[in-house]
């Protein structure tokens, strides 16, 4: 039994190795952030011709911009996220895991201003770690990633249970581990209760 659980523990670990590393990096990236708000400095700006229909609503213009630009891995801007700039131009943020395409509809100039705001690698990994299959409309590569992410998530819970079993079965007299386990659990419970 112990041998079988050990083997499953190892195999599941190898099958979810990169995900576990990404979870760790995502946690450190979140720790290193100096504020909740992410930097939104564009790395490039380009323009594209665009003339909105004269009788279109903002929602219809946003949909047309989405169809015209066909930005990779981006999805339509939700209605509640339609905003305007200080100059009263329609502002559309198309998000994906790499950052934001910030599109301003410059109606008077009949063109779009497209800013590319790219997430750092650390922020990218932070977003990647959060992908779940609950997002059923995600583009194919993101959905594929999310499915494996879900597998890794089950593995993470399984590691805690199987790890506990392996510890007690193989090294029950390793008293240092009891102390460390108690310290970790106590830290969690104390912080939980204090913050609640």
């Amino acid at each position, binding site marked *: 039994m112990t041998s079988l659980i050990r083997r499953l523990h*190892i*195999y599941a*670990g*190898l*099958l979810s*190795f*990169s*995900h*576990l*590393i*990404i*979870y*760790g990096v*995502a*946690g*450190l990236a979140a*720790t*290193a*952030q*100096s*504020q*909740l708000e992410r930097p939104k400095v564009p*790395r490039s700006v380009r323009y594209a011709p665009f003339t909105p229909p004269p009788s279109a609503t903002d929602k219809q213009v946003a949909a047309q911009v989405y169809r015209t630009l066909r*930005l*990779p891995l981006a999805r339509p801007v939700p209605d509640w996220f339609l905003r305007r700039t200080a100059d009263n131009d329609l502002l559309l943020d198309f998000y*994906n895991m*790499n950052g*934001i*395409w910030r599109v301003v509809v410059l109606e008077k100039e009949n063109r779009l201003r497209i800013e590319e*705001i*790219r997430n750092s690698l650390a922020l990218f990994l932070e977003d*990647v770690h959060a992908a779940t*299959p*609950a997002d059923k409309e995600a583009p194919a*590569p993101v959905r*594929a*990633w999310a499915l*494996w992410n*879900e597998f890794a*998530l089950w593995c*993470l*819970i399984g590691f*805690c249970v199987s*790890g*506990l079993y392996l*510890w007690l079965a193989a090294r029950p007299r*390793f008293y*240092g*581990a*009891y102390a*460390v*386990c108690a*310290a*970790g659990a106590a830290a*969690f419970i104390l*912080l*939980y209760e*204090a*913050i*609640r």
Partner: protein
Amino acid sequence: MLDYRFLRSIHLLAGAGSAAFLLMYGFSAMQMAHSSWFPTSATVRERQIQLKPRLADARQIARELMQRGVVRGEIQQAATAPARLAVRVARPGTIHDIRYDAASGIVTVRTSATGFMGMLNRLHHTAGLYHGYALLNAWGWAVAMVSVALLVLGVSGVWMWWLRRQERAIGLVLLGANLGFSITVLALIRSAGP
């Protein structure tokens, strides 16, 4: 070269120390992926407190309420209008929306608190050392340590597998599948821009 027994101790200590946090992350992530499995609800209560009238600083009102023990947490939003001030004080799982009527000095505090799974969900999203509330920074340190533990678990686990010669062949297939999939899919996503 680190021997197998030493690596096993490191692996066990990292796992034992971070298990409570890792279980929290696992279950809260499960709740986010399958919200229908874990219905969450919030309890809301409202109360009124009398402060001095004609105060003009939303943060000062929040601090006053903190000193009286009415609210706890981090000031997240503060809006100042001539007659009415509004401020939000929040910590994971609990949000206090505070409204102050300058003429009467009456403060209305609307507190919304989530249950256990809601609390785990908010803790999952809490990290960083920049908070104005010391307990959140303490949690941020814990997150950093658990993140390091997770990296140690991953690296020491793979290292131990490599030292166990009898598992190498199948292990190489499994690890290769995971790395091949991850590198390919992440490269596809990352190269899509912006």
